[in-house]
């Protein structure tokens, strides 16, 4: 995989992408803090280039929990094309909903509660993925359009469903940021997956970005 990374992106290009991801996720958390009273502890992002064939295994080991995770996915299109995946451990959906709602919801049915929890996941996903991808696009001087976010509550031992959009003969760029919702002590992470088609454009956009600082 290391050789593959060197072939696709230079170390400098990876560093630029990493810094752009850092800026973008920082902005996204500030957007979330505008809407709800939450503090998000950030970590240093990482950028990897992974062969599609190895992606399910990467996702399986990255999304490792007790077997279930809450995954919010939002696709985006443009010069920069791919998917944002926001991943929380299974069982945290009620706490996540509580971040958005300050009302007591104990009087409602389980079905209504499940719908609210799903709504909470979608809203958090929409803000974090949308703001992060949007900022990456802004910094790289392009724009993207988005699909509506969707909650994938699947068996995370089988991540093949996440990679259907990728050509198996190609590579994916995986940008990953870990975070922690401090008050709720919920860990999660954001993955931005972009496919081979974006690589040529991305390389040029990264060069233009840095050239503006020469």
């Amino acid at each position, binding site marked *: 995989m290391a050789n593959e990374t060197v072939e696709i992106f230079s170390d400098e290009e990876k560093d630029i992408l990493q810094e752009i991801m850092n800026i973008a996720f920082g*902005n996204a*958390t500030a957007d979330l*803090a505008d809407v709800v009273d939450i503090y998000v502890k950030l970590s240093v992002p990482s950028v990897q280039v992974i062969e599609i064939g190895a992606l399910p295994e990467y996702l399986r080991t990255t999304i490792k929990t007790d077997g279930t995770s809450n995954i919010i996915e939002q696709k985006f299109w443009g010069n920069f094309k791919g998917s944002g995946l926001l991943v929380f451990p299974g069982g945290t959906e009620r706490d996540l909903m509580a971040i958005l709602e300050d009302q007591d919801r104990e009087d409602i049915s389980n079905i209504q509660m499940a719908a609210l929890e799903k709504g909470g996941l979608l809203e958090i996903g929409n803000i974090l993925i949308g703001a992060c991808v949007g900022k990456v696009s802004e910094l790289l001087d392009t724009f993207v359009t988005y699909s509506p976010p969707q909650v994938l509550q699947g068996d995370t031992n089988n991540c093949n469903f996440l990679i259907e959009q990728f050509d198996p003969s190609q590579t994916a760029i995986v940008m990953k940021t870990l975070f922690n919702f401090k008050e709720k002590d919920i860990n999660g992470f954001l993955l931005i997956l972009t496919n081979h088609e974006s690589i040529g454009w991305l390389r040029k956009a990264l060069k233009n970005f840095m050239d503006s*600082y020469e």
Partner: protein
Amino acid sequence: MINKILIVDDSPVARRMLRTSIPKDKGFEIFEAGNGQEGIDKFKELKPDVVFMDLTMPVLDGYQATAKIREIDKNAIVIVTTADIQPKSIASVMELGAFTLLKKPAKAESIVEALNKVEMKLKKLRENK
């Protein structure tokens, strides 16, 4: 007057972006560190007039490094440059004694403005000595 500037950031790209945005005609000596601990070590060694500090870094983050630097020198001037612009993050670093905070990517004009304010602060500090 500012002579030495220390940039503390784990990202070589972020350091380069900042370095190229600092005016070149002022003759500043610019030094770099790759994490908070290295930043503290270089602060002790070089005694810079101003430190640009990132927050999210491995080994030692910018919060701890800012606190330590201000402990070493209560007049140390630390400008936080960060992508983490959540209100609570901003409040925390200002409580630690940061001079100001610049949102990443910091624009050249904001950097110049901040450095002008640092010049004024240094002048006052020297007058009060």
